[in-house]
């Protein structure tokens, strides 16, 4: 399990290729990469990500542990950048290795929902009209809360896996 908080760029393809090493039990790898977005209705020149050094890594690691309690994960990678980023650049990457796709998809989404609203990062957008802090949105909070009602064990995954033994 790897958690990295860094200012420099990362190569998502290389990271994915390295995940799991010689692991042969894995039938599924799920990956999400978040990027800096600039659209014509809301153009941005750059984005600056602030974080809480010391707390950030520990807080993400705690949540990776929670994901491991919920699903039988074989390996997991979280990378989150801070500092100044340009449109099109990667901000965040979550990749999960598991025996079957159900737990890989679900754990990756769980980790992203957490990173959106519980990891100590704050985004500021620099636009032609000035700079502004990105506001938290209600949907992100709701996305996180739905996991509260999820069973923490993998019973559900097991029955699902029975129908999809190839991952």
């Amino acid at each position: 399990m790897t958690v990295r908080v860094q200012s420099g760029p990362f190569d998502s393809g290389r990271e994915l290729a390295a995940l799991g090493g010689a692991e042969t039990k894995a039938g599924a790898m799920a990956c999400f990469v978040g990027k800096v977005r600039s659209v014509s209705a809301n153009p941005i020149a750059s984005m600056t990500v602030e974080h809480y050094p010391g707390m950030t890594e520990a807080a993400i690691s705690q949540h990776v542990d929670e994901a491991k309690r919920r699903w039988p994960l074989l390996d997991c990678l979280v990378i989150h950048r801070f500092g100044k980023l340009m449109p099109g650049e990667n901000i965040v990457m979550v990749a999960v290795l598991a025996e079957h796709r159900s737990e890989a998809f679900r754990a990756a989404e769980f980790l992203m929902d957490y990173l959106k609203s519980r990891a100590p990062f704050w985004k500021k957008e620099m636009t032609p009209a000035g700079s502004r802090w990105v506001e938290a949105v209600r949907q992100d909070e709701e996305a996180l809360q739905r996991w509260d009602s999820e069973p923490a064990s993998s019973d559900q995954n097991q029955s699902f896996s029975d129908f999809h033994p190839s991952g």
Partner: protein
Amino acid sequence: MVEVLYFAWVRERIGIPREQVETEAGTVGEFIEELKGRGGRYEMALSDLSSVRFAVDQQLAESATEIRDAREIAVFPPMTGG
């Protein structure tokens, strides 16, 4: 003495990233009221507590969280990672 850290627009509005504070407050909520009592930038930055979050010794906290033995308290807006 407790080390107090400010992040994002809370840091910008208060004007400094961190400071040492002498406090008798028992909880996060009481501590924030003490800071607001300083007036000026503090009162402005902390006027709407529904838009402020806290961490005590690098763990997310609530208004009711005890701070008697805390070494570090952080004050910041809702987080926007990912």
